[in-house]
């Protein structure tokens, strides 16, 4: 039972982090109808900035720089590439984001090399003991911060002018334009916010029990793709649900690996994709989505 509880809390914690990534992915899709395959590289940018600056400016300022840096790179991609959306089809733009991803990831992994970079977070490897249940402090920090940020985001999405403009554009870009909404601003805002969310996710993916930022972080971030897709590419609620489902599945399957060994090793890594495939077979638009991926 304690093992189960520990695995569950860990799963929710990592799920909340996946939800951060998936949320960014979803708002980019809502605002611009582009499937952003460069999302993992935004994550890498954020993590890299924190890793390279925390020693000189301290962790908190470094985190701020990481968030701002990833937001800026996101906005830049939007400005340089996605603005052409009126000329080029969305599927081609999605392929262009693969190109952007390759360029950014190649350059950053070259810089990182074979090192594992610490991010200088204040939680270290401390473990919180709640009765018999042991949870690393870093996982609690991840859970609390991600939940707060997600709540803040959803409130803004619902109640601010920014959110209304985003949702109007997502529903009908032409009519939103007739209201005086500037599509360029909306889409650049979405990319910047997605970048910042990705940078925050990078932090929580690279602290305890992960030893630090290394070149494999983008592969881990890839697990947020099934989270976004199974929730429904155009649904913020779906991103949340998808993140949690993937996180908890991964944690439980990983934790009970030895009991499930007849299914083969490394099941924890494949489980997210299996869950995604099963859900999409039943609901092609995802749990909360309105658009099928085939129409992207």
């Amino acid at each position: 039972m304690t093992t189960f509880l520990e695995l569950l809390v860990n799963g929710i914690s990592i799920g909340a982090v996946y939800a951060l990534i998936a949320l960014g992915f979803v708002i980019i899709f809502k605002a611009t109808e582009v499937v952003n395959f460069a999302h993992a590289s935004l994550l890498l940018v954020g993590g890299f900035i924190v890793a390279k600056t925390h020693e000189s400016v301290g962790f908190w300022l470094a985190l701020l720089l990481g968030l701002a840096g990833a937001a800026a790179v996101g906005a830049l991609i939007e400005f340089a590439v996605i603005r052409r959306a009126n000329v080029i089809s969305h599927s081609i733009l999605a392929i262009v984001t693969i190109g952007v991803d390759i360029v950014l990831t190649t350059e950053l992994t070259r810089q990182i090399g074979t090192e594992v970079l610490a991010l200088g977070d204040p939680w270290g490897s401390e473990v919180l003991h709640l009765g018999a249940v042991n949870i690393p402090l870093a996982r609690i920090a991840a859970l609390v911060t991600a939940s707060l940020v997600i709540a803040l985001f959803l409130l803004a999405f619902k109640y601010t002018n920014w959110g209304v403009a985003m949702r109007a554009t997502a529903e009908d870009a032409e009519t939103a334009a007739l209201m005086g909404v500037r599509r360029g601003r909306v889409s650049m805002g979405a990319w910047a916010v997605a970048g910042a969310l990705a940078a925050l996710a990078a932090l929580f993916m690279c602290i305890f029990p992960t030893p630090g930022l290394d070149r494999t972080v983008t592969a881990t971030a890839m697990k947020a793709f099934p989270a976004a897709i199974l929730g429904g590419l155009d649904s913020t609620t779906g991103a949340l649900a998808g993140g949690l489902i993937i996180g908890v599945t991964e944690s439980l399957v990983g934790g009970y690996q030895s009991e499930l060994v007849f299914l083969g090793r490394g099941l924890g890594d494949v489980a997210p994709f299996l869950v995604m495939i099963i859900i999409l077979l039943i609901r092609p638009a995802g749990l909360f989505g309105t658009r099928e991926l085939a129409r992207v």
Partner: protein
Amino acid sequence: MNVHDPGPPGDSGLTVRDLAVNYGPVTALRGVSLDVPRGAVVTVLGGNGAGKSTLLRAISGTLRFHRGGVGSGAVAFGGRKLSGASTSAVVAHGVVQVPEGRKVFARMTVEENLRAGALGARDRRAAAEARQRVLTLFPVLAERARQRAGLLSGGEQQMLAIGRALMARPKLLLLDEPTLGLAPMMALRIADTVREINAQGTTVLLVEQNAALALSLATHAYVLEVGRVVLSGPAAELAESDEVRRRYLGIGDDRDEALLSGAPSIRPALSRWSA
């Protein structure tokens, strides 16, 4: 039919001069000129595919959403050039469109739709005033404030679409077939609303297929056919012309005739409905 007089040069309403619009190889408008003087209600009539929506898209700058563009000609409002301006700039200059088919944001609430209408205007106090005006004009929108717009009836959606446009405090309101698909009573109700909006000082350019209704509202009318202006003149004159009577009003159709003359017998029922 008299060729329309472009009006005095100092006139600061909407002017469209020699406009040509293409969708790729397809020419949808050619040589279209028209004027909407300040304070007037002007209507553009025409059948399916005549180019009415294209004209409004060219004014609002939304042709790019349809892979179309202005080939030649110019659009100006209040002496400012609109052709080439972004849609948000057009809105900021006070030219706001209610698109064909209402296009309410179905997944958003009525309240949020109205809020979306004010996104182009920055002034908060002005937005509150505009909201008050809209809710006075359409009390039903206040009752349905928290409902999803997609759940409203067609007539209510049209009211919401007009109300949403009014949130931007337009000087010129462009209406694309506002009575399309509405029951006759509801169409009359919308017509009354347009009159009232105009009486409050908003200039109106009304695109319609319902010629009887449109001619009863407008001071001036233009008839578009396959992308060209084929007739234009004072609305009363056009309503009397054989050509318009035959092609757009339908000779011998008593209901349309009644509509055109103001249909006094329907009025009492109308005011009861709107209460």
